[in-house]
């Protein structure tokens, strides 16, 4: 397993540093872990690293990459991977995760998570890239399901099977983003329960929750995964269903744009905590281990 506690975590933003420390001072179990974007911390020093080093004393850490372009055809950027290795060595995160997506082409970074067809060819490419990441970092990684707005005629493998096959070939775990699952299901007019049934839940080691925006098409809604609002009710319901099926998992609240004041974010984490605890196992063994022995 990933080593993160089966509790609620938050995507950490520097503006919340003091409030998070105060919250942990009152209740050390208020937040189970933090997650940060690896690329934000690839500078050498200063405020960001001072904050992260301080928080790392008390909290489990998930490092979440947004720029490796694992789903792209180009070779992985070795220099970027080497910096990622140094960051992992510096903070020894309990988990590293990345996306089933591509984000660079021809040496240019496009700053978005772009989708790919699921074929035997792309399965080979993604598996090779995941292998390379895991070998370079010397650790397992988690691969996250994307939110998508389009489909591809080339796709011959359902997304859940594709993810399971990558995990099977590489030994990686999966990160189940329930907002992404809901956004994709809605956008492609698919039944979200069927999408969830198609996801290899036993391989999920972390859950992401976030808000989305809604636009409309003649045929129905088009949901945009924008991480700029509270988690939507149907996504909370998905969390409860997943917890009912496989028990509590490390569950992250992602709120990256229009970042709210701390109490709003903390309330989202509390709501996740309540659902995780409804399974009757508020903390798994991993939680106790990482609290007692922060790396």
């Amino acid at each position, binding site marked *: 397993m990933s080593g993160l506690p089966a509790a609620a975590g938050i995507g950490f933003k520097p503006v919340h540093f003091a409030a998070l420390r105060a919250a942990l001072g009152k209740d050390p179990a208020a937040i189970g872990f933090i997650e940060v974007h690896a*690329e934000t911390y*690839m*500078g*050498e*020093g*200063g*405020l*960001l*690293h*001072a904050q992260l080093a301080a928080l790392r004393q008390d909290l489990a850490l998930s490092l979440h990459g*947004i*720029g*490796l*372009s694992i789903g*792209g*055809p*180009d070779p992985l*950027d070795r*220099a*970027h991977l080497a*910096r990622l290795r140094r960051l992992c060595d510096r903070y020894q995160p309990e988990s590293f995760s990345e996306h089933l997506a*591509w*984000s*660079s*082409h*021809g*040496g*240019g*970074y*496009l*700053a*978005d998570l*772009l989708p*790919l*067809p699921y*074929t035997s*060819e*792309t399965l080979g*490419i993604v598996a090779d890239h995941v292998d390379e990441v895991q070998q370079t970092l010397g650790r397992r990684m988690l691969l996250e399901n994307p939110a998508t*707005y*389009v*489909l*591809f*005629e*080339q796709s011959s493998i359902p997304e859940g099977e594709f993810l399971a096959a990558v995990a099977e070939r590489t030994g990686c775990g999966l990160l189940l983003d329930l907002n992404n699952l809901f956004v994709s299901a809605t*956008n*492609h*007019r698919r039944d979200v329960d069927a999408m969830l049934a198609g996801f290899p839940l036993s391989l999920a080691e972390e859950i992401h929750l976030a808000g989305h925006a809604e636009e409309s*098409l*003649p*045929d129905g809604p*088009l949901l*945009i995964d924008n991480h700029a609002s509270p988690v939507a009710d149907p996504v909370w319901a998905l969390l409860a269903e997943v917890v009912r099926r496989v028990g509590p998992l490390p569950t992250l609240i992602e709120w990256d744009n229009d970042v709210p004041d701390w109490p709003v974010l903390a309330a989202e984490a509390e709501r996740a905590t309540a659902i995780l605890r409804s399974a009757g196992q508020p903390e798994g063994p991993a939680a106790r281990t990482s609290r007692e022995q922060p790396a």
Partner: protein
Amino acid sequence: MMRHHDFVAAFAASLRDGVPPPGMTAGRPEETARRLAVYRNNVAVSLTEALRAHFPVVAQLVGDACFAALARLFAAGRLPPSPVLAEWGETFPAFLEGLPALADYPYLADVARIEHARLQAFHAADAPAIDPARLGEADPGRLRLGLHPSVTLLRLAHPAVSIWAAHQPGAARSPIPPGPETALILRERSLAISVRRLGPGDAALIGELRQGKPLLAAAAAARAADPAHDPRPCLLQLMTAGALVEGTVA
């Protein structure tokens, strides 16, 4: 079937021209272009907002709409070479300088240079400040002081420090003096980033220290630039900021 390499190349092109790549579809295929537009918008907004976050005063000076257009033009010519967006804007000042449409804003590139230096200072490596006792005991003819990795000295053709300062929150309205300015950008012990305007003596002193010159030689250069220059206030300020680090003794 189209190979993945060709597919991604076609998709990347579609982000520019809006024509969906072969095979891209939707439950209702006629919606494909509208759905592709989500990705096109995400890419444009992500890159524009990253640049705006790093060059907020440039954005204030030209206005939001103009800045968005500049960002798109800049990105079209040079996508970020890596996913570390903090490193992307290095050539943005020169890009601004080269745009004929901005000829009426000759100071814009210099303001951008200050903002880029602030971002570098924010992310620069940590380094322990020098022990103040070293200044007293060492031979100033041989003592070489190092400057903290966050320190940047910019000699600017325009009064960009004054312009930058006038666009900070709560800044008092005051006239901008014409002429060149020298900027000192560094990270304070508090980890806040400061921007100071330097007089000719301080500018020469820090410029010589940056070159690795011994303290005595740097002070002499400062006096050559400003015969009345006293290096002590400047050195004290640098030390207070934690910007002097251990150098090498020749």
